[in-house]
């Protein structure tokens, strides 16, 4: 990788990690959600560096354009939001920091020390057609199984989030104590 590309890579990595840290530490969840947007966008940029152009586009389409909006909606929807202080207070900071550092140590040591078999002579090629071909041939079963998963998720999402008075019906069992 040449110089400027390297620089852009580190900028993207910093954007991703920095925003992720902000998501974890910002006390206001709306700010945290916006920080998450930059983290997602940074990940999309990293995908580009991995020659995964389709994945990068999907990342923007699904995560930035979908999941994030959903998270913001969830914040706006929170019941009686003006009564409660919108915050996610941090607890057990030291223990958590220690644990995270240990995990970071293990993961980064593994990533750095392991000799992963590399594919040489990689050129940046559009991947969408290749993915499409694999989905239609080798990975057909996961592709079709995904549709059943999406069907269940679709029905479940509609069922659970639908506003209705159900659950207070007469046939409902009392809360067991």
């Amino acid at each position: 990788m040449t110089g400027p590309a390297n620089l852009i890579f580190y900028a993207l990595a910093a954007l991703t990690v920095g925003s992720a840290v902000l998501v974890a530490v910002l006390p206001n969840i709306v700010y945290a959600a916006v920080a998450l947007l930059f983290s997602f966008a940074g990940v999309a940029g990293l995908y580009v560096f991995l020659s995964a152009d389709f994945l990068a586009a999907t990342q923007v389409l699904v995560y930035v354009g979908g999941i994030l909006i959903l998270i913001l909606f969830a914040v706006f929807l929170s019941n009686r939001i003006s009564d409660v202080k919108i915050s996610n207070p941090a607890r057990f900071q030291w223990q958590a920091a220690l644990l995270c550092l240990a995990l970071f140590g293990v993961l980064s040591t593994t990533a750095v020390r392991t000799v992963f078999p590399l594919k040489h002579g990689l050129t940046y090629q559009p991947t969408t057609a290749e993915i499409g071909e694999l989905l239609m041939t080798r990975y057909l079963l996961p592709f079709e199984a995904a549709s059943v998963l999406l069907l269940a998720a679709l029905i479940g999402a509609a069922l659970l989030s639908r506003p209705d008075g159900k659950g207070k019906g007469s046939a409902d069992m009392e809360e067991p104590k």
Partner: protein
Amino acid sequence: MPLGNFASLIHFLPELAVTATILLLVVVHVAGKNRQSAAPALLSLAGVGAALLLAALQPASAGRSLFEGMVALDGFAIFFKALTALATIVVIFMSMDSGELAGRSQAEYYIFLLSVLLGMFLLTASTDIVMLYLSLELVSIPSYLLAGYLKGRESSTEAAMKYVVYGATASGVMIYGFSLLYGLTGTTQIGEIGRALATGDAPLPVLLAAVMVTVGFGFKIAAVPFHMWSPDVYEGAPTPITAFLSVGPKAAGFAVLVRFFYTVFASPDVAAGVWKISSRVDWTLLFGVLSAVTMSVGNLVAVNQTNVKRLLAYSSIAHAGYMLMGFVLLTPAGLQAILFYLVVYLFMNLGAFYVVILVANGTRSENISDYSGLGSRAPFAAVSLAIFLFALTGIPPFSGFIGKVYLFAEVINRGVYWLAVVAALNSVVSLYYYARIVKVMFLEDPKDSTELPVPLFPRSVLCFLAIPTLLLGVYWEPVARVAANSVKLLAF
């Protein structure tokens, strides 16, 4: 040579039956008017029954790789298909009779239930990590929905919430492990990954991957320390779903655990007829400790429970610990013991939960203290529950005893004495809390002496569960033989 996509369809009939039933359920719901009709339940029964039949008819002898190597069709997969389908049928019967679910829209419930079943079919047969991950999600996501199905009941919503958070974390960690394996080997086929790892020499990433994958599978079988979700989920979810989660996904979790670890991190030693660890990572010790901790935590915490569902949740954690004993031995006999135990466990655990449902329908309570005098209020249910509880304890002449004999015999046979001692001590502890319920039912005076009627239909379902529980305690040979045959084909 794996079969192609269209050639595989003929060997894929159970899965197709379940998928068709799911679609039919949607169609029936869309076309129908009455949301509480029994049609979805009956339709699901027919569909799962057909799937069970088709799975049983599949030739167990020929191990085949289907769909370009995505799933395997071998005795092991067929065994688990039949097991999970049977569990689903019983759970459908339980759901039809559950007071918690009455008055709620039915079709969605069965759509989720059958989606989980389809996921379990695929999960137990997966031989590719892409397929494996997707089918694990197909098991998990509808399970979350089912746990939170009692919309408006706080404990149910809490159960779903906790389940989602834990489940998402566990599967995230697991897929990180998968990515390490893919990075090391450059393939998604678990057989090829296993072969590549056997020749490679990189203990650190392999160990890390093994641990991370264990998180995902351990979450599914509710092994300590990945069990935190289960008591709350089991308590809050509708009782038929609690029963289902404690048997179906747990069995599927064991299936995928065995298939994955025995293919990726171990290789068959054909001469000795056992498996041997192929990498330098001694994961059997890890799982031995996990097994001991799981059964001990499950049993010791169960002692103090006052809610029956919570107690059974901890007991089911303990049983996962027992079954893990068979997993660490790397022998066909150890696997056979797991499979046999799962069959026995299916009947006794579903039976115990069914009685809980029947009692809750009458008393609207799940507290152990409200079971006082059940022996006189509902003798049939009380006697059945006593049978199931004694079987869960593992006392002769009940089937749980035979299941434990198989496990203990193989553990001792392989010389893992410390594990056998821990398990034996645990069985003693479990006797205490199981017997406590029996004591409350038969020896304590009822708070409310009105009779609890148990209609004919639940009675017959209870008989269907109690008879195998008793019968397998005296005549277990055929089931043990099926279990032994189902093990032979795996990975060899």
